[in-house]
């Protein structure tokens, strides 16, 4: 605690003029956010981004300069329960919060999703007599609406994942039993199947691991999350035609790589490649649905 306040003091001394100009730019006074509170929020934001050592040498001011300080000041005002700040927040961002909830969760669940966040933003949960608002996790690194969308998306996704953990378990169990039975009735085919699954997983994992992370993420957007090209391109800040070209290249390269490895390293001919794929993929898919059903939930907002 002593260290933290010492760091804050140093931070303020070092960037005094700059903090002053940001304070004015943010219009923080309008929400009765004092210079101390504002400077501390900037310090927390910088601490969030840089390590102690970096804090001294990194271009902290250009980081601070890029912050959405107006939104940060508004969030600080809301957090402190300033009525004008709340009115401003509601009129500026409430419609967008609900619109984002609709995009994320659909019309049916949007109200619940947005409503729960709304309560947390206001700080319904009290701790040691103090309101604890969700706003304390906002550090001005993005606009307030985008951050709100991220929080909504996180709640929604974690909810879905928690629900998914409960449901497919039975189904996966059935599949596993069915497979054990068939394996037991024909031990040899069970052996072949396991061998193919092992080979296929090894080859595919290796091929995926060779990819640039961005390309792997691109594949996930495409294969698993069903994003449109426009949506996926927007996430990367790419042109849609560029994104389309890259996706096609990655997919083709990957298919070729997997097939080639099966032929070269495992000496598979046409028939063996086909069999390995067909049999291997079937077994692998079953393993996956079992594994996914046991996944654990992620962490909290922070």
């Amino acid at each position, binding site marked *: 605690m002593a260290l933290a306040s010492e760091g804050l003091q140093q931070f303020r001394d070092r960037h005094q003029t700059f903090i002053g100009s940001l304070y004015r730019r943010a219009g923080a006074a309008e929400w009765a956010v004092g210079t101390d509170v504002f400077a501390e929020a900037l310090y927390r934001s910088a601490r969030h981004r840089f390590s102690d050592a970096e804090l001294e040498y990194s271009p902290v001011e250009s980081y601070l300069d890029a912050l959405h300080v107006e939104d940060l000041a508004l969030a600080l005002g809301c957090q402190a329960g300033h009525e004008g700040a709340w009115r401003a927040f509601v009129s500026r961002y409430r419609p967008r919060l609900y619109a984002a909830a609709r995009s994320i969760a659909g019309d049916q669940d949007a109200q619940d999703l947005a409503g729960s966040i709304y309560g947390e933003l206001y700080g319904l949960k009290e701790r040691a007599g103090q309101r604890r608002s969700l706003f304390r996790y906002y550090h001005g690194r993005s606009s307030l*609406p985008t951050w709100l969308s991220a929080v909504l998306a*996180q709640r929604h996704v974690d909810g879905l994942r928690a629900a998914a953990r409960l449901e497919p378990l039975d189904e996966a169990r059935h599949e596993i039993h069915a497979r054990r039975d068939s394996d037991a009735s024909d031990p040899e085919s069970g052996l072949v199947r396991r061998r193919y699954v092992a080979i296929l997983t090894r080859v595919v994992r290796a091929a995926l691991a060779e990819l640039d992370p961005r390309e792997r993420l691109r594949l996930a957007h495409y294969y698993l999350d069903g994003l449109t090209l426009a949506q996926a391109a927007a996430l990367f800040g790419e042109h849609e035609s560029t994104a389309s070209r890259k996706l096609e290249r990655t997919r083709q390269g990957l298919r070729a790589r997997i097939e080639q490895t099966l032929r070269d390293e495992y000496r598979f001919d046409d028939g063996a490649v086909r069999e390995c794929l067909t049999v291997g993929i079937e077994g692998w898919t079953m393993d996956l649905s079992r594994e996914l059903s046991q996944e654990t939930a992620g962490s909290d907002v922070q």
Partner: protein
Amino acid sequence: MSKDPSIEHDLERAIKAGLRERSRTASCPPMDVVAAYCEHSLASEELSQWEAHFAGCRRCQQLLAAMARVEPSVAPAAAPSWWSRALDWRWLVPAAAAASAFAIWIAVRPGTRPAESPTVIVASRPETQAAPTAAAQPEPSSALRMLEKAQEQFAKKTEPNPAESAQAMRDAIDRLAKKEAPTVAAEAAGAVAGKPAASPPAPAVAPAPRTLASRVDAAAADAAMGRQAGLVVIAPGAQVQWRAGPGGQIEQSRDAGATWDAQNAGTSEDLLAGSAPSDSVCWIVGRGGTILRSTDGRAWSRLESPVSADLVSVAATDAANATIAAVDGQRFMTRDGGGTWEKREH
């Protein structure tokens, strides 16, 4: 490498399975980092660090997918995400082919002021307008040039001041959509005639006919309410209209957009462009080579496509004659209602 389709299919399934595998990565980023990522404002070392995490984390992938589905009206103001949707050439009907239909795209501009009016881009190519020849090709308007330059800078990612270039693009859109619209339409049509076949369809921008103004407002209001902004295909006369969008949704209005009825498109592909040469004939194209046609204004049938790439525009003159363009710039024409397709070089 074999081109055996069953092998190709199983390879695809294997890739999908590989991607689904449970990851054992470090903990997920806090939401303010995710939000900054979506606004493209992470520092480069942070970007590569977190992208490496996203590549192996299903939870984060799902989260980003949810973020990607948030309407542009709730997305960041200065990020390229809104502009790539609003400005992408695919949102505009190609000028090169004659069509009597109007296609109106509405993109809500998520400015910092919530009350900001939406950018309405109206693309049209009335039949009466003669196709300009390459020889008589005029200079593109300054707004169009500005737009292309801004687009280039964004694509290169070398722009030293993103806010400035975003502003430049916004200005360019404003000029395109409002002030310079009538001239740009002719100029863009001229420009496309001289362009190589590989380039994406060029835009033709014209002001909305006065009679359509109220419809445009209604659709803009829908969009502002956070509903999916999408494609509106308007038949000549403007009484009969279709709107189409993600997941194969099609709705029809027979009262100039006052009321809408859902129609069964028989597909779940995203629909990207349309053309309605009459009240009963409408062509709609979309992702994955999807081509839909209705010849009675109600029932839709899916036509055999010459390509599997995303189709980004269609221009039809009747139930038999239409030209389609794919995202990679390939163009095809049919004279027999989609029975056969002929590749077009221009």
